[in-house]
């Protein structure tokens, strides 16, 4: 079987103190905004991204890579609905949502 075609990926985790969802940025820091997430476009870049993102063990926890889709304008969006919900917060209290 042919290897799965690579899908672009970003690195995400949760802030140790606040618990907030955060994304690893191209500048090498962390942001609460998915628009600032660094995107890896091949397997090697993804491995390197994860390695860089995991270098904050006392600031960010539960770091992992997740697939994104890129629209024609170059904006990244989560490929899976779980990650989509993570960008927004719980749906039952609109006032607790973010980036709505």
């Amino acid at each position, binding site marked *: 079987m042919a290897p799965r075609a690579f899908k672009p990926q970003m690195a995400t985790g949760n802030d*140790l*103190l606040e618990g907030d969802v955060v994304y690893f940025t191209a500048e090498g820091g962390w942001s609460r905004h998915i628009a600032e997430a660094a995107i890896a476009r091949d397997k090697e870049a993804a491995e390197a991204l994860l390695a860089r993102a995991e270098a904050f063990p006392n600031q960010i*926890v539960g770091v992992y890579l997740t697939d994104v889709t890129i629209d024609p304008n170059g904006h990244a969006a989560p490929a899976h*609905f779980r990650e989509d919900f993570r960008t927004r917060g*719980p749906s039952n209290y609109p006032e607790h949502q973010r980036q709505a």
Partner: protein
Amino acid sequence: MYDYTDFDRDFVNARVAEFRDQVERRLTGSLSEDEFKPLRLMNGLYLQLHAYMLRVAIPYGTLDSRKMRRLADIAEKWDRGYGHFTTRQNIQYNWPKLRDVPDILQALADVEMHAIQTSGNCIRNVTADHFAGASADEIEDPRPTAELIRQWSTDHPEFAWLPRKFKIAVTGSPNDRAVTKAHDIGLRMVRDEAGEPGYEVIIGGGLGRTPMLGKVVRDFLPKAELLRYLEAILQVYNMEGRRDNKYKARIKILVHESTIEKVRAEVEAAYEANRALLPRVSPELVAEIEAAFAPPAFEPAPDTAAPVLSAGLRAFIDTNVSAHKLAHYGIVTISLKPVGGTPGDATAEQMRVMADLAEEFGHDELRISHEQNVILPHVARRHLPAIYARLREAGLATANVGLVSDIIACPGMDYCALATARSIPIAQQISETFADIDRQRDIGPLKIKISGCINACGHHHVGHIGILGLDKAGVESYQVTLGGDGTETAAIGERAGPGFSYEEIVPAVERLIEAYLDNRLEPGESFLAAYRRLGPDPFRAALYPEEARSDAA
């Protein structure tokens, strides 16, 4: 209400101090996340999708106004002004900050509460009938038993690292409101031929990915033998429960793979050995605990005629007030299922209203039910108009207990890191679809239970209509099960057929209920009774009309 002894108080305070130190060490980096995670979980602190979540134990679901007010204070001071009451009679806070958690735990400890053993492979918070001590059908109050088990199981050194988590439920009534057959151990109070109360002991029940009803391991256990017998069950499970595969690690799998006969023989042998090694439960201790749960000083029956009730209050009493052991008292269930609301959620303000009502009218007692409602167990009926008026002001007077909108739902993918789909919006949409209370009353008793993953916190297997949210190739998909029952006539629901999309599931439930209304013999035949009489076919036909049409062609 059981009051902490000096031992309990010192123990809980020491645990708070210990956790404060652990958090400090995590913040300074001297504990890694891998080291810290099991420590925070032992104190009920999870990391969920959007934030930390703190799960606080409410032992056997019993609270007083002081404790309830403290839960409100915590929601306001350290969270976002609300809490979520769970199907295990606990409360969860969805937004605590790591730095604040030691202060929250201290605030809990100050009112004799904690979050110990609300996670991990240990004996979890013991649950009990939420009508305990009040219900007309009760043999004995199950809470002294539950408290005894709490004392025995808390920090029990031998059972801190079981193959998997372990849940015990106790009921004192023949009507099982504690879902005892879906627990690792279920205790049902029964009487022997001499009329002495004891326990029917059930083991190996559980929901999750392999739902099973518990089996009776012993028909009658004298009360004084309880701990030696429980110790025996846990010893057998601890030695023989599987540790190679977490999905096969619960005691239900041991009972299933080994057979109840074999497990019974081993438990009885261990129990015989324990009889020589361990003391019986001390009668003095039992007497002390039972005294802590003595009934309140009930007021005498009135000699005046009952007041004339408004239609709204009559409807509320019909659904939300149950028979108390005293005729001039009632058990009030406060629904946390308003139309369009999140099942089990209460704001800090609502918690305070419930605390006030318990203090003013309810002998200062409150209960949390596994169905995610709050109970005032002892209310003199003459107070019902005043209580109803106050509940209405607080948005807590929804008269839907036991009806289609009284839905159990786990937090699902709106909060939970384990979830595979959302639960809460499905519950919200169903309750909006059936918002008309007259329509709900016409449909009659119906339990819809929704889980957002296979772990089944929403008890979907024992819902008359169960809904399980799954991730099917990257899309939310909802499976329907039918005919489940969590009471003394327990049954695991049967899967109806292929799943439905997020958009399709609520209309599918509506079709199911229409099919029930079309097929019931008379309005008194409940959904479950009709399902048991008719079997799944008419319900499947309603769920899958396309298929039914092509079969007929």
